[in-house]
Structures are given as C-alpha cells and as structure tokens.
C-alpha cells in the first residue's frame, strides 16, 4: 500500500466522516470507564447505529457491480465480451420485463468479461443510465457482441463503458468478437473494505478523547 493510496484512504473525507463514529465510540468508552449509566446506554445505542451504517457502506462497496472511477485517475481501455444487457429499476434492482428502458428511474446493467492486455480477464457488471455503445440492440441473431470498457489499472473493479471510445479501441473490440469467450471469475475488490478507514479513524478519535477526558479527571 503506497503513500498515495494511504492518502486517498485517510483523506479529508475520511477525517470528517469518522467524527460521528468517533463520537459514538467516545460515549461508549466514557460510559465503560466510569461515566454515568445514561452515557453507557446512549453510547451503546449510538455505537450500534454507527456499526450498522458502516456495514451498509461496506456492503454497498463490495457488490458485484462495478464502482465509479476515482476522479483524476488515468483509465485504460480494454475490449470486452458482452454476455447480456438487462434493464433494472435504479432503486430496487428489480429487472423490468420489457426492456424499453426509457422509463424514469431505470438503469442498464451490462454483463461483461473484460479482456485487458497484460492481465487476466475478469467478469464485471457495469451499470449506466443510458444504452452506451448501442449494446442493447445488438446480438439478436446470436452473433457475439463486444464493447470497449475503460478500467482503472490499479483498481480494476472500477470499470465503466465510455460513451464514445477512440476508433482504434473500437477496432480492437471488433477483432475480439472472433476470439472465444474466456471463463473469467468476477472481479473482487481488494484492499480494505469500503468505509473501513472510517472505523479505524473513529476508534483512534475515541481512544484519544477517552484518554484525554480520563487524564483530565
């Protein structure tokens, strides 16, 4: 884990976002180390709420679908085999029977196997509100469909479908259609789970606060 990753993980968003977690853990810590009964019960309730929120954040970040790209990071292009396109409700994830897709609050979900140069192919689901690269209308006669995907080379679970890829990448994608589809396992997110930095920082804040309060008497 290099310095840039550490800075990204524990950047200003994490420092501010960990304050509520730290407050809840501080209340619990103060209550456990001799504070009143009120403080202990309140701290337990607040900590339980904070843990449930962190669990929801982590689960959302670890889903099968791809994550958004980090702003300001370079992306690499790679051709991808398209297994299928579904139309789902944006909120519930429920598949719609008719794939008209123009209704509000719907998303397209593209099931891809990305074949990057220099790494193993991986499977990913990409969500997008529009039918990028015209994929939903292709493949009716059983011909293989390919697309151009853009991924973050350091974190390949951040894959998107660019709306207008360069012509050279489109040619590479067309050339890929003749190749057999590799069996690839779904890409997994490596490193800390989403939101883990908030938990770590919250524990540090709470430890410091409890130590300060108890030392001050």
């Amino acid at each position, binding site marked *: 884990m290099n310095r840039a990753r550490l800075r990204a993980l524990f950047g200003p968003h994490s420092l501010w976002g960990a304050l509520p977690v730290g407050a809840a853990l501080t209340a619990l810590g103060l209550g456990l180390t001799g504070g009143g009964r009120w403080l202990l019960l309140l701290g337990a309730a607040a900590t339980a709420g904070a843990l449930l929120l962190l669990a929801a954040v982590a689960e959302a970040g670890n889903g099968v*679908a791809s994550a958004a790209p980090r702003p300001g990071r370079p992306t690499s292009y790679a051709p991808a085999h398209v297994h299928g396109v579904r139309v789902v409700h944006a909120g519930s994830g429920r598949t719609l029977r008719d794939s008209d897709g123009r209704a509000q609050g719907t998303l397209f979900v593209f099931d891809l196997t990305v074949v990057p140069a220099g790494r193993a192919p991986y499977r990913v*689901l990409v969500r997008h509100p529009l039918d990028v690269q015209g994929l939903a209308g292709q493949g009716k006669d059983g011909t293989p469909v390919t697309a151009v995907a853009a991924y973050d080379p350091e974190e390949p679970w951040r894959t998107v479908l660019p709306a207008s890829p360069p012509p050279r990448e489109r040619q590479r994608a067309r050339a890929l259609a003749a190749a057999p589809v590799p069996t690839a396992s779904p890409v997994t997110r490596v490193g800390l*789970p989403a939101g*883990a930095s908030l938990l770590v920082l919250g524990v540090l804040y709470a430890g410091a606060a409890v130590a300060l309060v108890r030392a001050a008497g």
Partner: protein
Amino acid sequence: MDGIRQGVAGGVPRRAGWYVQTLRLTACALLAWLVWQVWHLSTYEAADVVWVCDGTGSCGTDHFASVGPFAGIAAAIGLGIAAARYLHRSAPGAVVALSAWAALAGWQDALADGKVTRADTSAWFLLVPVELPVPTWLAVLRWLTAAALAGACCGAFSSLYRTAAVARFLRGRACAPGTLEGWRSLGRRHGEADLLFADERGVRHRVPVVVARRALTRETVLAVYDPARPGDAARTRAALPRKEARP
C-alpha cells in the same frame, strides 16, 4: 424484443463477507445488551421512582426508570430491525421474549434485594400507569415470555420452510436462480407453476412446483434441486430468499 438475451450474473443472493458480518453481529450484540439493561432497570428500580405531582393532574419524575419502558420499546424495535436479516420471521417473537424476560429478571432481582415485597403493588408506567401486585406482574411476564418464544418458534419454522434452508444446508441441495411460468391457482394461498432454471452444467430444466402466492411478486426465485437428479420434480423446490439479488 430484448436485444441480447440474458445471463444471470448475480442471480443467487450473495452472503456478505466477514467484515460486514462482524460489524452487524457486533451491533446486534450491543443492541441486545442494551435491550436487556433498559428493561431490567425499568423494573428493578420501579419502586425507587418517586412521582411528584403538582396538583393539576400531571406528574413528573427525574428517575431514569420511569422512561425505561419507552426506551426499552425503542431499543427493542431497533434490535428487531437489525436482527431481522438473521432471525427472519422469528425476530419479533425473539425480541419480545428478550424484553419480557429482562423485565421479569429485574423484578425477581428487586424481590431478592428487598426493594419490593410480594405484598406490594407496583405502578409500572408501561405507556399508561398500570397498578398491579408484584406477583401478578411476575405471572404476566412469564406468560408473555412463553407466548413470545412460541411465536418465535413458529416464525422460525415458517422462514426455514420458505427459504428451503434445511434442504440447502443439511441435505446438500444446490441452488440456482430460476423463473416461474404458467401460474395455475390451487386455492387461495398456493399455486402451481413451472420452474425454469439452469443447473451447474448449464442444462436447462422445466419442473412443475407448488409455491405460495407471494412468489408471484418476485422476478426470480431460487431453484433448490438435487445436483444428482436436477429434473426430478419430487426433489426440486422453489425457495424465496429474504431479499432479491441485486445487480
């Protein structure tokens, strides 16, 4: 026309990893401890609550035990919501049983410590002040605990059946996402339909199954089948997991 016909990446609901499960279980444990503490306090110190009435019909107190039941109900609801993904339909019964048992334990501890005697009446401010002798409270809470535990067992059986948990985990059946077609009603609560699914080798099967009516609201169901004999209607069921798989 759909354009490209569909593959089902993510059709089977995935279990969350150990980090998420640890967070959730820790939160549930904290809430369970909280529920126990609050209900225990509300009855253990019910005799200590001194009500100060100002003569106009409204009474107040500054003792925590007076709001114990309200805080207890709020904490119990929170625990029920947090534990619902683990306890499914037995969550309400389990939470009520825990609350009643904690209140019962509080009263028994108060009796043991001499804070109340069996001859006292205690006004337990449970939403409205109810004044009953202590033995009556003990009996009420015992019955309530037993009834809630029975309700939790019924809920557990119902959820285990609906999600086919026994078949999946104990009898080695395999799961695959499936869809239902061709509903034929068999009465008010059940119906027969054809379950379409692809087994692990990619062979598609169409098996008639009986499902509850609420399966009609699902886009996909879980096909639970015997991997050795996937097309056998006697060994195949449609299960409804607690929530739909999301993309």
